[in-house]
């Protein structure tokens, strides 16, 4: 493998029913920085069906080039089809790096692809930079539940592959006047090579509403809520603010709320504008999932709770007295 043959930064663009997910747009913005450092192009790669709108979106968000692979077999995400397409593209165009969102899909796909390409993969990064001397990407990520940060390089093999947490990088301002060259690649995956079949989707009623990972406001409840019914006030506060409901693991373990709502090392990672931690002590594993939030608000009756060490606004008090007043006040603001 001659490393010099490998050029350009690719961003895998995840779509959901044809719509581009935010994390891909965030990665385009940071990918621009990485590509710029090595005088390379920024390329968006999209796999799916009917992708014209998605191609427009990534162009407005700054991709120099867009590679599209379209086909009926890519309508729903599947590991085998998407891996086949990405590996073929990578072998043909030889990118220096491929960035994926650290989502359920990205974390299923990236290791499979990197393994087939016999290259390294760095998971769940929270920072990306280019080493000025070597031109290698420096992938920084938390490990051991967030108690340590590690910077990782993949210097001997290409492409450099990694997944990046949603919410850590900001999107650029879209500019509809931008243009990009669009490349359509015809890559087929025979039906018998797609070994998993999506047969149904169980949408739990509880999960309706704003998506946790993409929410601008997240209101989370923890063990301090005391019992499942009390999640109602968390939901009410989230609704008033147009935000999503999250939870600590203690609340999930107690069976008060769905595991899909867990924020933290082993749950979802969120990076909203405001994160409300209500009745949550702030264990390091919880912080691992929300410390990239812009503003953290904590409501806890224990003044010693570690959550106060990271909170921008820390209210010491009983959440059952504080939250109802918040709901009333936010309602008033909304009405005015």
């Amino acid at each position, binding site marked *: 493998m001659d490393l010099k043959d490998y050029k350009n930064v690719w961003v895998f663009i995840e779509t959901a029913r044809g719509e581009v997910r935010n994390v891909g747009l965030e990665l385009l913005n940071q990918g621009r920085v990485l590509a710029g450092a090595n005088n390379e192009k920024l390329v968006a790669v999209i796999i799916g069906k009917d992708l014209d709108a998605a191609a427009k979106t990534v162009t407005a968000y700054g991709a120099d080039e867009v590679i599209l692979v379209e086909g009926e077999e890519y309508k729903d995400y599947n590991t085998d089809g998407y891996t086949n397409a990405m590996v073929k593209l990578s072998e043909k165009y030889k990118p220096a790096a491929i960035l994926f969102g650290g989502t*359920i899909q990205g974390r299923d796909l990236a290791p499979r692809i990197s393994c087939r390409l016999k290259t390294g993969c760095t*998971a769940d990064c929270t920072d990306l930079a280019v080493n000025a001397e070597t031109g290698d990407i420096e992938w920084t990520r938390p490990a051991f539940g967030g108690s340590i940060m*590690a910077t990782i390089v993949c210097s001997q093999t290409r492409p450099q592959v990694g997944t990046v947490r949603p919410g850590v990088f900001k999107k650029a301002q879209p500019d509809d006047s931008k243009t990009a060259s669009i490349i359509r690649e015809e890559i087929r995956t025979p039906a018998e090579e797609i070994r998993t079949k*999506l047969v149904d989707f*169980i949408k739990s009623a509880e999960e309706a509403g704003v998506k946790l990972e993409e929410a601008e406001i997240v209101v989370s409840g923890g063990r301090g809520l005391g019992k499942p019914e009390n999640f109602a006030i968390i939901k009410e506060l989230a609704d008033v603010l147009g935000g999503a409901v999250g939870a600590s693991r203690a609340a999930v373990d107690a069976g008060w709320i769905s595991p899909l709502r867990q924020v933290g090392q082993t749950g979802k990672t969120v990076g909203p*504008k405001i994160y409300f931690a209500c009745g949550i002590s702030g264990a390091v594993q919880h912080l691992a999932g929300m410390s990239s939030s812009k503003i953290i608000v904590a409501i806890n009756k224990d003044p010693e709770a570690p959550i106060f060490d990271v909170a*921008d606004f820390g209210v010491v008090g009983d959440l059952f007295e504080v939250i109802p007043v918040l709901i009333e006040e936010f309602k008033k603001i909304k009405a005015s």
Partner: protein
Amino acid sequence: MDMLVCIKQVPDTEEIKKMDPATNTLIRKGVPSIVSPYDKNALEAAVQLKEAQGGSVTVLSMGPEQAKDALKECISVGADRAVLITDSAFAGSDTLATSSILAAAIKKLGNFDLILCGKQAIDGDTGHVGPEIAEHLGLAQVTYAAKIEIKGDIIVVNKEHDDGYEVIEAKLPVVCTVVKSINEPRYATIKSKMMANKAKIEVLSAADLPDIDTAKTGLNGSPTRVLKTFAPPKRGSGLRIKEETAGESALKLVQKLVEAKLV
């Protein structure tokens, strides 16, 4: 059904509180080692399937000699056979190298219908090894399984998703990684612990895995390399709000958020 579960022995991250400021590494002394929590869920899922429809459960781990304790713990909660891969040539392997070694061992140990992993190990938190084992073995993968059913030679999985569960079907053999909500792992009994203590742990070294090129394993053979480690950036604490009454505190918070143009 013959099943194999990959389990990793990890330091209990809940007990890791400090970093050594001189070396910027974690102080691991005195930190207990445990079976990575999701691997316990993977094992429990396998044992439940065995109880329902017969078969066998093999547990496999790569790690130092000490990882035998973790494997014994697995036997105490239902595994039939335990294998440890240990060799200094494998120490410091990244996920690509680790998965290639585990896959080579799996091939040697038998023909398994189902291979289970945790969704991620709680030290590295990567979640790579499961999909990579699947790739090395040329098998299909289903990650983030919250429910597993076997219908003949078909596996039906509820896969965790953003706003619900995808129901995914695949023909066995398959590699599956599991999330915590799939089950509640059982506890060992005094009797099962004593029995497990006496159980034999099979050991494999690099010499037993001729397919593995040791130039591609260990710290030096891995494609990724840790350049440095450091303490996470501290987020300073901001404004503390504690007025006479909780209601007043709430009002002050709202006022501050409005002032900062956050709402």
